[in-house]
């Protein structure tokens, strides 16, 4: 069979997917780019060409810079915490103890819980009048009076991060555990004979096996955390006083609450650009990690 025919056949099989992807992703993306240069409203027709006005207005607004800081804080803290707790949990699950299989099976639960259900659950836990957190802390005499964890600017973002971590650290743990189980037993045994302490053993024997898979988990989690919408919308809608407003929430408000489609589009593209830059930087890092681990 000729290779041209093979290639043509492959393209034909690929075609339905590509057509649908162009229709639901490619065309909307191009349209968003077009909209971002206009002052179009969500309803009604057209809108006038305004050049780069949307971009310059957006980039110079204090809303944007505040929201960028909030998003970065959310992404960096929650992903870092998920990585650390996830690896610790994986190291534990890699030990032998009774009930290990059950505990490992339980790890799938937070991951399988729908994001909106997770957000709702934590919203109930944090409830200022009847929430379990207030009840538990009061009964343990750690606080004197019930607090509004999601209603106070000082605690809302931290409360969201805890809820996000709880759902996502088990995934990191499962990925890290799979990598740990690929570490050959005789290598850890040999390092013991050579007198390596637990820390050096982790740093020089085990970490090289973890680095690759963890880097990928780190990339995927960071991109997701940067795009975060669901959990924040359900728990705080960006409040109180916009202290938990992330970039995706800001785009939603701009394009759909205030119906400024053009301005919202420009912000959406700025977010896309930031995520892409992040991904490219990470990809370089992954390649480097993979190279040094091999």
């Amino acid at each position: 069979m000729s290779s041209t025919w093979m290639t043509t056949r492959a393209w034909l099989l690929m075609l339905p997917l590509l057509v649908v992807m162009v229709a639901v992703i490619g065309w909307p993306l191009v349209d968003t780019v077009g909209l971002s240069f206009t002052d179009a409203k969500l309803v009604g027709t057209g809108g006038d060409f305004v050049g780069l006005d949307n971009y310059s207005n957006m980039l110079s607004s204090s809303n944007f810079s505040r929201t960028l800081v909030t998003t970065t804080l959310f992404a960096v803290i929650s992903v870092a915490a998920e990585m650390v707790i996830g690896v610790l949990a994986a190291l534990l699950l890699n030990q032998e103890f009774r009930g290990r299989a059950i505990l490992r099976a339980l790890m799938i639960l937070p991951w399988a819980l729908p994001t909106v259900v997770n957000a709702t659950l934590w919203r109930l836990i944090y409830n200022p009048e009847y929430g379990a957190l207030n009840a538990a802390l009061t009964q343990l005499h750690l606080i004197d009076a019930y607090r509004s964890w999601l209603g106070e600017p000082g605690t809302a973002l931290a409360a969201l991060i805890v809820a996000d971590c709880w759902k996502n650290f088990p995934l990191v743990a499962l990925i890290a555990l799979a990598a740990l189980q690929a570490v050959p037993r005789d290598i850890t045994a040999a390092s013991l004979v050579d007198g390596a302490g637990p820390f050096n053993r982790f740093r020089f024997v085990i970490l090289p096996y973890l680095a690759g898979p963890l880097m990928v988990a780190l990339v995927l989690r960071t991109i997701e955390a940067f795009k975060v919408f669901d959990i924040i919308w359900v728990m705080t809608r960006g409040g109180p006083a916009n202290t938990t407003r992330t970039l995706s929430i800001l785009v939603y408000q701009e394009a759909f609450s205030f119906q400024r489609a053009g301005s919202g589009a420009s912000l959406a593209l700025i977010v896309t650009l930031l995520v892409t830059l992040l991904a490219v930087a990470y990809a370089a890092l992954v390649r480097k990690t993979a190279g040094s681990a091999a």
Partner: protein
Amino acid sequence: MERRSPAFTVFIYACALLLAAIILAPIAWLFIMSISPAADLAAKPLRWWPQAADFSRYRQLLSTAENSAGAAFTSSLRNSLEISGMATLAALALAIPAGWAVSRTPAIGWSLSMVIATYMLPPVALAVPLYMGLSHLGLLNNVFGLALVYLTILAPFTTWLMRSGFDSIPREIEAAAMIDGAGLFQTLRIITLPLAAPVMATSALFAVLLAWDEFFYALLFTSDQRAKTLTVAIADLAGGRVSDYGLIATAGVLAALPPVLIGLVMQRALISGLTSGGVKG
């Protein structure tokens, strides 16, 4: 395995208990809220264990009496089932041929890479044109419209899973069948697709989980019982003026049940899918 000191063994068990408590406590509390009488949930100090289990909220939510909380909930349950089912079938129909083509003809692999790179796009970057497009086609607040939009998420992911699935089936098996006189489609039907059945099942499960979980597009593109999904219905309950928190918890338990059962039963397949993703990127 190294010998462990008794102190270290105690430490391991203490950590295991702590981890189990962290994982289980919030989930257990969701369930306890769903069966606690409203008075217990509003009590101060809070009653952690209901005096009598009360399952009436489950009956209330699953009833289809008109204009009740149950009617809104059951219609959203049906919409979620329909939308995840349709979107999953459509995604697989696109992913299976495309995954096979890329697996057997690496020269076109770059096109799949481009499709997968769309994962970086925040949904907000597509939302306005999709909203206008659906509105133009009369597909706003419509289960077909939402299922179509879900392909933006489901199709790249399932194609990528199918590709790695086909990669693990040696092409020599296909070549042998063709030498024996089978045509291409016969070979695929008799040899390749049956071998790929487990990967198809895993891909379908992931697709169902993704669609079941989706919130952003559902929030934007649906407005009433004709198309609202479970995630939107629950967010409505949580953000609304419902005074009985147990009812919100019950809706959460019911919405979580299908994906949690899938997760527990299919855990081995799901974890290998996730970790192969973790290793291969």
